[in-house]
């Protein structure tokens, strides 16, 4: 069983989420490992985003336990919103883009590193005095941001307002911003939505490099099966709030329950 394996990054146990009479997530358990891309797929309304919202503290789960493992263990369902990002090191993106549109591309990446900067700058007071410690921290933050801008090929746009970037670039910037928080777990909600095939291929590359180069565990909600099947190491399938399949992509692709859930259409070509 995956749950007993030592190399677990996040363990979701018996997660349920009810809104009034509606059961959005019903007793879902799965685990995701570090340095792996775990995809969560399922038809619309299957409860995928609800699972994300529970993990990132937007919802308090009705029942169940969410454990982030590692050197230190965190029970995510008991933490406040900003603690999940700050202490447990879980980052996420949304289906709709939520950059800070009025801030520059660089500033978007710096906000994500503000914890370190705020500590070094003594709530900006040392920053006002121009202390060396603060200047060093600021330089390190800018270097890191530049590194990410190079990886997502947006260096020349560093000083443009993020809201002016083309859609695909905004998507990449959102992922880079999430990565600037030094996450251990990165949750991406439909990152390929609305991308053209070329942008989608770039995104695959970026996600694979985040897994292999940065060693971050990725939890991915995606409708685009070409993305899911190509890059994920592990796939969890939800339908009507329940888990119907869980395993490597090839096994899931041929699972009869999965094919049924997608209305009999082939898994590699559902209408996304």
């Amino acid at each position, binding site marked *: 069983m995956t749950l007993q394996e030592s190399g677990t990054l996040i363990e979701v146990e018996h997660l349920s989420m009810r809104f009034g009479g509606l059961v959005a997530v019903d007793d879902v358990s799965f685990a995701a490992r570090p340095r792996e891309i775990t995809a969560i797929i399922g038809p619309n309304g299957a409860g995928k985003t609800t699972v994300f919202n529970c993990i*990132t503290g*937007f919802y308090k789960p009705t029942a169940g336990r969410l454990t982030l493992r590692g050197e230190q263990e965190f029970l995510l369902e008991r933490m406040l*919103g*900003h603690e*999940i*990002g*700050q202490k447990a090191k879980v*980052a*996420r993106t*949304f289906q*709709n883009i*939520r950059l*800070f*549109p*009025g*801030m520059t591309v660089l*500033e978007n990446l*710096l*906000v*994500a590193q*503000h*914890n370190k*900067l*705020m500590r070094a*700058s003594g*709530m*900006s007071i040392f*920053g*006002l005095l121009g202390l060396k410690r603060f200047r060093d921290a*600021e330089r390190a933050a800018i270097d890191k941001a530049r590194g990410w801008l190079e990886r997502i090929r947006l260096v020349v746009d560093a000083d443009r307002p993020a809201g002016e970037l083309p859609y695909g670039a905004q998507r990449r910037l959102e992922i880079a*911003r*999430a990565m600037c*928080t030094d996450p251990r777990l990165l949750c991406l909600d439909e990152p390929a939505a609305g991308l053209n095939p070329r942008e989608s291929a770039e995104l695959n590359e970026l996600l694979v490099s985040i897994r292999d180069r940065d060693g971050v565990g990725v939890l991915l909600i995606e409708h685009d099966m070409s993305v899911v099947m190509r890059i994920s190491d592990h796939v969890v399938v939800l339908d009507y709030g329940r888990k119907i399949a869980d395993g490597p992509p090839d096994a899931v692709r041929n699972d009869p329950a999965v094919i049924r859930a997608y209305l009999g259409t082939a898994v590699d070509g559902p209408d996304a």
Partner: protein
Amino acid sequence: MAYFSQQLINAITLGAIYGLIAIGYTMVYGIIGMINFAHGEVFMIGAFISLIGFMICAGLGISSAPVAILLVLLTAMAFTAVYGWTIERTAYRPLRGSFKLAPLISAIGMSILLQNYVQLAQGARPKPAASVVQGGYTLFSADGFDVRVTWLQIIIVVVTVALMAGFSWLIAKTPLGRQQRACEQDMKMASLLGVDVDRTISLTFVMGAALAAVAGMMFMMYYGVVDFFIGFLAGIKAFTAAVLGGIGSLPGAMLGGLLIGLIEVFWAGYFTSEYKDVAVFAILVLVLIFRPTGLLGKPEIEKV
């Protein structure tokens, strides 16, 4: 011409004071979308703390005006900032996430509470303040009319410009300012990126209150008299300035403050001083009808 120049100098001085208060309104609105109606009272408290500060300075025998002004300025900013922090902590934060009118009602309650508190603690009679800075400089004389700019007016404008420049820099360049702008644009996302939203909001109130304290001190020195009710009118006028400039916009608040100062002084100078407040509030009505986003404000974009 001479009369006009004199009015202009007076207007800029007054505008500087309104601008400082308006920043507090506009920043709080920008970050949590509420009008902090107790902000005028924070200004009034700043004025009272300054008055007490100058009396203590006189008692301690600090006779040098620049030293006294600097000491009182810093003390007033610090104490008033504590008021700002406390108001947010007790009256607004518990209501965050409640229905939209709740903090607004709480703000009005807080405003009445602070007025009454000062009335009881300091008495209802207007308090005269000894003038700390005297004298001035005669720029030119024409038509038998001396155009004078007092040292106090110069101090007010210089301090205001310096504070506004420093403040704009703080918002534009420091991690704290970035954090505030991030909270302003998407509070939930900022929180997910690890920004402590509650602390950022507290700091916004603290900064607004510190600037209001400076305005209070200037007002006290300029008019030479304070009472527990000065916060109401000055607060509403600064609010008008913030709306005129475009609420939520920092340069807008400064510009709005200046314009309100100009309107008030010129109306009083050329028409009738009884109706100067009417002129100011007519502007509020006109702006709200014809240009609700103000001069420099951005149109409200519905957040998804």
